[in-house]
């Protein structure tokens, strides 16, 4: 016990600030969005309108979840739960990797492994610690919802559903830490699984069967493949059943059991997917800091491009189904205008452009990872090897900028290609290809803002690069993509770059937001160049 206690205390000490931010952030999000939804959709008639619209419009179901009646609290659960579970999932996978693979990778695990603590005790400690953290998270979420909804029983179901998804993803994180040799790889794999869980339930929800009242949807089987889907099936504030959460426990238990078996059979620091031997001499392309930046980043860029293409595919394949499902109803269209970016045009166009906001988010994520790589290069000391040669700091930064811009363009283009050609394949007109590329181009400025602003952070507050990068992206996504759905006030939504992305539908597209953001990106990029030129290279 005492040894476990030491390891637990060590984890709490290392994480306290980070976890307080995560847990309070998620809790406040619950509280804030509850009250905002109550303000905007106070009367049951407006909620019924929105739900009927959502049921008719799978893109909303895809992003939000399945509705469970027009009751106020059930409506809140429908609007917000999947996003909370997504955040809980990311928090847990990062936590799991941070305390297992990252420790091994940097040799700190050997310090512990050489003490009388057993080889598995860091994992045991991480499991215990992770479960405790999730219980606290569940409690905070439950309290946040109780304050907002005044329904303690339902709120506790939401809290448990969040904690349950968190624990399931804790297992996923621990498992991916066994497979990958680097913490970067493990984080990437685990985050991809979490995103896949979100997308799977999105597909299941979008393909679900509406009830005859058009206020409920029973999801298709896809949703049952996802821990986030399991949480949704608790039907909080309605049926309030905890049974689906057993699946979370089972997934976590199975993953952790596999982790222990694997760990008993491998060396400290080794992984299941072994590193391969490399080339003895460098290719011609690896001859400068630009070549290096590309070499380091391209696997990540390819990963995000696949993500962009998947969303594009979704837009292309579903857009036809949607235009067929919904007739042209003026009132419906008006409501759409308030909920999704893109007020006019056909539903298919609106759907494509709404999905492309997500492609924009993915492009921005890819861009900020390029900047984060610069920071990692600095911290691990490999930047020093480059900057001790005749490469100036400015040149170094510009090379990463170039890779960032190329990355954004590639992600957006793969989304556009996938969307355009898949919708043509489903029998839509060839104009969809143009629509798709236009929708993708509209996302370019917002992603560039992320690239340049984070580079500026890197120039001024290097130690904050990684934390602020993800925080900016999370806030921007939430305010910009979901802000309208949960009725956030205009000024809050305006904080997000994605809110200002042009919506190229019809003939009268307003591109001014994009031009402004382009200007901001250029100014931030110049300031970042000045800052990086002036500051010295840090060390770990």
């Amino acid at each position, binding site marked *: 016990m005492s040894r476990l206690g030491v390891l637990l205390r060590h984890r709490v000490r290392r994480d306290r600030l980070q976890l307080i931010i995560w847990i309070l952030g998620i809790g406040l999000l619950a509280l804030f969005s509850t009250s905002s939804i109550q303000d905007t959709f106070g009367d049951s008639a407006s909620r019924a309108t929105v739900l009927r619209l959502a049921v008719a419009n799978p893109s909303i179901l895809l992003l939000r979840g399945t509705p469970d009646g027009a009751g106020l609290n059930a409506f809140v659960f429908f609007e917000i739960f999947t996003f909370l579970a997504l955040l809980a999932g990311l928090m847990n996978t990062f936590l799991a990797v941070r305390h297992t693979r990252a420790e091994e990778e940097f040799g700190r695990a050997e310090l512990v492994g050489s003490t009388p603590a057993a080889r598995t005790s860091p994992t045991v400690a991480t499991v215990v610690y992770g479960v405790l953290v999730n219980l606290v998270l569940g409690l905070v979420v439950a309290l946040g919802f109780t304050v907002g909804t005044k329904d303690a029983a339902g709120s506790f179901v939401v809290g448990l559903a969040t904690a349950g998804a968190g624990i399931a993803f804790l297992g996923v994180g621990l498992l991916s830490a066994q497979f990958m040799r680097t913490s970067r790889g493990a984080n990437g794999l685990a985050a991809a699984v979490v995103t896949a869980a979100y997308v799977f339930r999105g597909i299941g929800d979008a393909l679900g069967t509406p009830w005859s009242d058009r206020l409920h949807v029973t999801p298709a089987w896809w949703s049952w493949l996802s821990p986030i889907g399991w949480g949704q099936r608790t039907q909080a504030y309605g049926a309030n059943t905890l049974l689906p959460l057993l699946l979370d426990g089972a997934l976590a238990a199975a993953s952790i059991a596999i982790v222990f078996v694997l760990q008993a059979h491998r060396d400290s620091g080794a992984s299941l997917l072994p590193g391969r031997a490399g080339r003895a001499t460098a290719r011609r392309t690896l001859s400068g800091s630009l070549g290096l930046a590309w070499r380091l980043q391209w696997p990540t860029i390819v990963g995000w491009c696949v993500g962009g293409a998947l969303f594009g595919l979704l837009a292309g394949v579903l857009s036809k189904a949607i235009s067929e499902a919904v007739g042209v109803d003026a009132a419906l269209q008006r409501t759409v205008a308030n909920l999704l970016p893109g007020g006019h045009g056909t539903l298919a166009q609106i759907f494509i452009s709404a999905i492309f906001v997500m492609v924009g988010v993915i492009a921005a994520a890819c861009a900020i990872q390029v900047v984060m790589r610069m920071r990692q290069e600095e911290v691990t000391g*490999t930047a020093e090897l480059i*900057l*001790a040669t005749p490469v100036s700091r400015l040149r170094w930064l510009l090379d990463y900028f170039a890779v960032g811009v190329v990355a954004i363009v590639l992600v957006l283009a793969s989304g556009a290609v996938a969307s355009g050609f898949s919708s043509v394949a489903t029998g839509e007109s060839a104009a969809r290809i143009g629509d798709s590329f236009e929708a993708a181009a509209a996302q370019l400025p917002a992603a560039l803002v992320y690239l340049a602003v984070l580079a500026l952070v890197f120039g001024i507050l290097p130690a904050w690069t990684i934390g602020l990068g993800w925080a900016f992206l999370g806030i921007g996504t939430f305010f910009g993509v979901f802000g309208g759905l949960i009725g956030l006030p205009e000024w809050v939504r305006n904080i997000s770059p994605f809110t200002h992305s042009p919506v190229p539908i019809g003939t009268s597209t307003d591109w001014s937001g994009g031009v402004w953001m382009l200007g901001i990106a250029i100014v931030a990029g110049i300031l970042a160049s000045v800052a990086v030129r002036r500051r010295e290279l840090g060390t770990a």
Partner: protein
Amino acid sequence: MNSLIDAKPAHDASAVIDTRGLEKRFGRVRALDGLDLSVSAGEVHGFLGPNGAGKSTTIRVLLGLARASGGSATVFGRNPWDDAVELHKRIAYVPGDVNLWPNLSGGEAIDLISRLRGGADDKSAYAKRKARLIEVFQFDPSKRGRAYSKGNRQKVALIAAFASPAELFILDEPTSGLDPLMEAVFNREIRRASADGATVLLSSHILSEVEQLCDRVSIIRAGRTVDSGTLAELRHLTRTEISFAQDTLTDADLARIPGSHDLSLAGGRIRFTVDSHQVAAVLPALAELDVQGLTVAPPSLEDLFLRHYGDKLDDAVAGEAEARTPRRRAARAAAQQR
């Protein structure tokens, strides 16, 4: 640089590296606190000091990776912060703690650094040099970064440094993690570079390496230079130990030996120390006493360095401070004031 702080004389034009009163603060930590270092063209200069003395910090300032907070530093007569890119064309650097890119092989990392330095422009000459170095360092270039041991990571940086010609080598503990065989290879490569006319600044904790390679050394402590000169000069400032058989000698006999310190009797032998420059003056007295089994041991480098490094030893020798030259006394007093 800051001309108010730099009230000292102009820089020595012939020096490749010249720092005057160099200061570097990290918040409240004074990593460098008035460091003077001068390395002339063509010399191999040892740079010594206990852990945390500020060697790596000095090197980072000299490379323009860190900016001095005060004092001045020039490399080839230029400011390393402002002219970093120009200077780096002439410098090869081996960091103290080599980290590699996990997904690049060692061979790729060597090629990359060499190409960045412009050393790979002449392809065939570069390929020959690289092949020779890989051979002598017994290095496997096709493993990936993370698969290398510490010594092998070090070899990547060393091979990259030696594979392209450079006028100045700045090496921060370059042999840490190398086995003795590889250390010998390293020594040969330094001699080769030096014979080609390069200047070398070599930070090290390994005294035999310093003794074998360095023309001059600078010893720093707590961010200041406490001693600097050729090894012979430094040795000269410490005591030589003399011992011989006691036989029938009396205390009165021994009192006739001039300038002796720490006189002791152990195991039938008399031992004492004299300042190294007074050894010649002591010998006639010893001849007169007709001592048997005489040994004269020059001061070991260890003694020299321990004296500068350790607080305890430093205090122990402080009692005999009269015997020291003013220069050393001033240096130590300065160190103690801190």
